[in-house]
């Protein structure tokens, strides 16, 4: 762009003209770009790089050794288990809630929508505490649970519950605006052609929302694996038993076992990166379809 703001209409295409006409001064442009890059570098790239360098400080050999520690290994397994239960639950719930909210009119709809957002607005620690109050030994349910030998707090069920609670909104939040925008005429068309409710959902609604759904599941999964606060309150931090990966990172760090702490942290960071890459890949590959499913 050699014209620097003074556009000559001859020989330039329309889009070029527009770009020049709406462009800021060069200094302002570069200034803004530099600010943005500095910000991203300082707060996103640098910490991420630090995690990896710290983890690999003593070479890849040690990195692998600390990861194969039985307690760390147990933490990884527990995290996968918890996400494996919480994500499908919230997938089903999210679709059901979005379906109800987007396609039907009923009393208390606004309230339900707000309620779904609740885990977003409550501090995760409080979310964990709620379960302690519900299931702890001094709670109403506590004695009954104890006498029946059901262990919820400081055990896997508690961790799953807390994780489900915290990751509750992700799928629903992703789907509600999408489904509202798509309206109900596709479903009505299917019904008018003789499709049953289930056929309509399976052949029409689900394909229409699949990209949004995948998106929501990715985000939900990332949060389920990375959740710290709520899980920390209900887990009890029993090594090798109720420690998830984020909790394991904290314990190792507090013991000044930095290499091990950062090694586990790299796994979580990798999860985040893989999630982002998957998301971008999906967007790139299916951008046309995603756009079409939003429009139309």
């Amino acid at each position: 762009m050699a014209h620097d703001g003074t556009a000559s209409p001859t020989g330039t295409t329309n889009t070029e003209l527009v770009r020049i006409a709406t462009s800021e001064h060069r200094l302002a442009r570069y200034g803004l770009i530099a600010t943005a890059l500095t910000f991203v570098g300082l707060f996103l790239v640098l910490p991420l790089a630090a995690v990896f360098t710290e983890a690999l400080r003593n070479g890849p050999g040690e990195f692998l050794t600390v990861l194969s520690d039985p307690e760390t290994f147990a933490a990884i397994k527990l995290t996968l288990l918890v996400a494996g239960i919480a994500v499908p639950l919230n997938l089903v719930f999210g679709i059901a809630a979005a379906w109800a909210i987007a396609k039907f009119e009923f009393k208390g709809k606004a309230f339900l929508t707000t309620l779904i957002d609740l885990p977003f607005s409550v501090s995760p620690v409080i979310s964990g505490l709620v379960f302690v109050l519900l299931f702890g030994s001094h709670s109403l349910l506590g004695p009954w649970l104890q006498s029946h030998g059901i262990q919820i707090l400081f055990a896997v069920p508690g961790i799953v519950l807390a994780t489900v609670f915290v990751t509750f909104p992700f799928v629903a939040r992703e789907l509600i605006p999408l489904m509202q925008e798509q309206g109900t005429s596709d479903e009505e068309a299917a019904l008018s052609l003789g499709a049953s409710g289930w056929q309509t959902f399976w052949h029409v609604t689900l394909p229409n929302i699949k990209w949004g759904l995948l998106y929501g599941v990715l985000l939900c999964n990332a949060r389920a694996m990375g959740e710290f606060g709520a899980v920390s309150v209900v887990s009890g931090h029993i090594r090798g038993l109720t420690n998830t990966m984020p909790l394991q990172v904290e314990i190792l760090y507090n013991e000044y076992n930095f290499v091990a702490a950062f090694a586990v942290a790299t796994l979580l960071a990798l999860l985040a990166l893989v999630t982002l890459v998957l998301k971008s890949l999906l967007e790139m590959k299916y951008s046309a379809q995603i756009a079409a499913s939003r429009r139309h």
Partner: protein
Amino acid sequence: MEVRVQNIRKEFSRFPALNDVSLDIRSGELIALLGPSGSGKTTLLRLIAGLESPTEGTVYFGNEDASRKTVQERNIGFVFQHYALFRHMTVLDNVSFGLTIRPANRRPSKADIRKRALELLDLVQLSGLEKRYPAQLSGGQRQRVALARAMAVEPNVLLLDEPFGALDAQVRKELRRWLREIHDRTGHTTVFVTHDQDEALELADRVVVMSKGKIEQIGTPDEIYDTPNSPFVFGFIGQSNILPVRVENGQLWLEDRSIGVSAPGEADGPAQLYFRPHDVELLDGGGCIAGIVVQTRRVAGTRHVELDVGGANTTVEIELPPEKATSDRSRLAFRPTRWKLFRD
């Protein structure tokens, strides 16, 4: 199939959308529900389809009470205003959908479904596009896919909601003619909703004019246009002029002037005179309506002249042949040749 709507009332959270509506649709008929937005025409169509259920009243398909049946059981074909094509399916899969989802005992073989879908695509002149996705089609093409999809299930009645509403003027006209052809060839009982009077009058065997949740008039396009039975229909269909007149001894008076129109048998008193801009004759004097030209516009093959009709403080518009030149502020005298009187 014959469809009868009997004393239907429909309320949306206490707001009446339809009020005691009855309508007989003959088998094989092409019928238009015409009215302004909010007149209840789409609600009536959705009630026939079973997409809404009436607060009161009954819908009969033939002699069968269809009101208790679900939309699936009614076996109708519905074409939505924005087509509602399944965007992730090809054109062929869209058209086949109604057949492929049938339970195994009523489902034709795969080859038969394909054959039928291709025949329908041929009928709607979309052969060769069966592998396309809806996003790759023009608006008019999507509309035709939607129609083929609705016809694939051999519906009892074909229902179309503003079928040409989202198309541009040229395509609309083509599709209109084409829909009439398809109807004549397939003989489906067809009901379509429109707010476009030209569309209704040109396309339909009979037109149902609706307003505020009620049917104002049912008739052939000629009857609706030539003998509107209410001020609403007169005003809604085509162009119209309204003048406050007085009836005295079977003669019409505008202010203190007889306008040379006799209305034998009409009781004395004030009335509203309705007439169309083209149903007038120019006069040189005598009993007539006199006005001063405010504005003239040439619209295609006619000249539209807007007249200020003196003390009545109203303007009327009349249509004259284009060669009839008039200058602004000049006086013009005319008399309606076809008119109707309504009283409040």
